[in-house]
């Protein structure tokens, strides 16, 4: 009889095990070390362990190629390692900007960091999963941790409300996703992704039950990546959640959901490409339209960034619509640069305060140049990158996606997407104008802690470095996706 749990299984699960066990230790950190700041340090230690486990994974992938474990329900490949690193970096950034913010909100408790690690464990499983059951469990672990984190400011009505909305819409989308999964299981008699791929390939593409499976699965996934018409939760949740959680959701949760989406669409549903490419194209078009146009009228920075992140999700989807190597390369490059630029902006918002409350309006940035020229320049770099203007990293994300679209002959989508960059530039320049040209009458104080400063500088520097010297990062992103999924 073969053993149920082998050394290879343990090796595959190492990042998730590290995160879950350190997460449990974090819960006791405040009590054990008699210090309120201890939890964040223990959580950072957990991130180091995870990064080490991922480094061992990447060495193994480089030497032996992808491997499967736990009865083929989990995998290690370039794809899972790449996303694992994305989650580690965004969790580190989220932890270091949280300490000061949560202290100011009088909610700096150990559970918060534990939840961050548990959410990350879920994301790791989503990136590594190769079976409907593991993917679903990873998604639920991530989502449940996020519901609690969004509502973490217990005495603040906005936070409660955002958590409630996120939970209801998130649970609804999980239900749809699970329904789609159940039909995929019914079609193939297996929950393993490659066996489902074989079963789907042998079916007629216009088989109603296959269409039903595809539609319900897509609805669930579209909710998670917040694209039109399932984007309604994003602005409310982004505005109501504590700012570090907003940053974490907008980057890590979105990256994990894209990892899941790519696994589903590029492994089991790959033979149905001619059905889902027009679907994704239409959704991406609607998403870019609504995201960019709704962002114009927003005055709350977090809400504006929510709409901007909706439109970014539309751009990332276009990489999948292109469906060729350049497009997929664009997806991973985009996710990488999006992490740095978005985290930088949220780190600055987390540091803004007025009369003891978090300040989140565009006007609160008024006259930043006069008072903190350093932060003003950093914001300029990050906002130019979000808009996709050349010397910064954001340009390369969009560049590969547009190139992929042109190579695939999707000229219409490429032109529309390029035009929307102009609209996006308009609302990012509203923020830039507030920073450089207007003097706020009563400026908000910017009081970043050491961690926030580090996060700001790191994201600004990476945004510039990737923009000026992109080759190593692009190679890394390329290897992750192409080698894994082809």
């Amino acid at each position, binding site marked *: 009889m073969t053993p149920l749990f082998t050394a290879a299984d343990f090796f595959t699960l190492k990042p998730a095990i590290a995160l879950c066990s350190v997460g449990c230790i974090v819960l006791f950190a405040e009590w054990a070390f008699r210090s309120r700041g201890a939890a964040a340090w223990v959580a950072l230690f957990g991130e180091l362990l995870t990064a080490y486990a991922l480094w061992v994974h990447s060495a193994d992938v480089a030497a032996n190629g992808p491997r499967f474990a736990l009865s083929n329900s989990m995998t290690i490949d370039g794809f899972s390692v790449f996303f694992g690193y994305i989650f580690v970096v965004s969790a580190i950034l989220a932890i270091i900007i949280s300490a000061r913010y949560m202290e100011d909100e009088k909610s700096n408790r150990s559970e918060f960091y534990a939840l961050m690690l548990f959410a990350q464990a879920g994301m790791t499983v989503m990136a590594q999963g190769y079976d409907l059951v593991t993917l679903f469990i990873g998604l639920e672990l991530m989502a449940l941790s996020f519901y609690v984190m969004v509502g973490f400011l217990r005495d603040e009505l906005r936070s409660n*409300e955002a958590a409630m909305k996120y939970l209801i819409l998130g649970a609804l989308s999980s239900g749809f996703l699970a*329904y789609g*999964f159940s039909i995929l299981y019914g079609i193939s*008699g297996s929950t393993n992704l490659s066996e489902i791929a074989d079963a789907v390939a042998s079916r007629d593409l216009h088989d109603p039950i296959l269409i039903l499976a595809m539609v319900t699965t897509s609805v669930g996934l579209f909710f998670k990546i917040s694209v039109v018409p399932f984007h309604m939760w994003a602005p409310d949740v982004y505005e109501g959640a504590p700012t570090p959680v907003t940053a974490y959701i907008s980057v890590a949760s979105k990256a994990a959901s894209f990892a899941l989406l790519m696994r589903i669409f590029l492994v089991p549903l790959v033979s149905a490409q001619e059905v889902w490419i027009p679907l994704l194209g239409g959704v991406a078009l609607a998403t870019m339209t609504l995201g960019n146009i709704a962002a114009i009228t927003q005055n709350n920075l977090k809400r504006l960034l929510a709409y901007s992140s909706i439109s970014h999700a539309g751009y990332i989807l276009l990489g999948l619509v292109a469906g060729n190597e350049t497009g997929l390369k664009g997806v991973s490059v985009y996710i990488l640069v999006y992490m740095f630029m978005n985290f930088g902006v949220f780190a600055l918002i987390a540091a803004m305060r007025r009369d003891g409350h978090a300040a989140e309006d565009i006007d609160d940035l008024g006259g930043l140049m006069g008072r903190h020229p350093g932060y003003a320049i950093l914001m300029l770099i990050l906002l130019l990158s979000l808009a996709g203007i050349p010397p910064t990293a954001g340009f390369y994300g969009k560049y590969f996606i547009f190139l992929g679209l042109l190579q695939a002959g999707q000229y219409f989508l490429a032109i529309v997407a390029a035009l929307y960059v102009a609209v996006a530039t308009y609302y990012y320049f509203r923020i830039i104008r507030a920073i450089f040209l207007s003097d706020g009458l009563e400026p908000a104080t910017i009081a970043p802690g050491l961690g926030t400063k580090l996060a700001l500088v790191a994201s600004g520097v990476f945004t510039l470095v990737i923009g000026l010297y992109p080759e190593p990062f692009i190679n890394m992103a390329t290897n992750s996706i192409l080698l894994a999924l082809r």
Partner: protein
Amino acid sequence: MPVTTAHYLALSMALLIIGTVGVLTRRNIIVIMMSIELILNAVNINLVAFSHHLQNVNGQVFTIFVITAAAAEAAVGLGILIALFRNKETVHADEIDILRW
């Protein structure tokens, strides 16, 4: 008339639709959560029916995980609802309107 797999699938489809309509039209958050449970139970019926039809145990294993996730979701949801109720004495979605819906 024997009950076939198709009957179970029709039942689960009906539950999915009832649940979705419930989430979208009901205003009481408790009822909305019950509707979400209906959707997840539609998934369970589907999985068990397919599992029986295919004579394959994977679907039943998946069901156990779905039930667990549904229970966890209900627990977190009620916890958040209690936190919300402490700050604002209501469980009606229409009155929860600081953030534009």
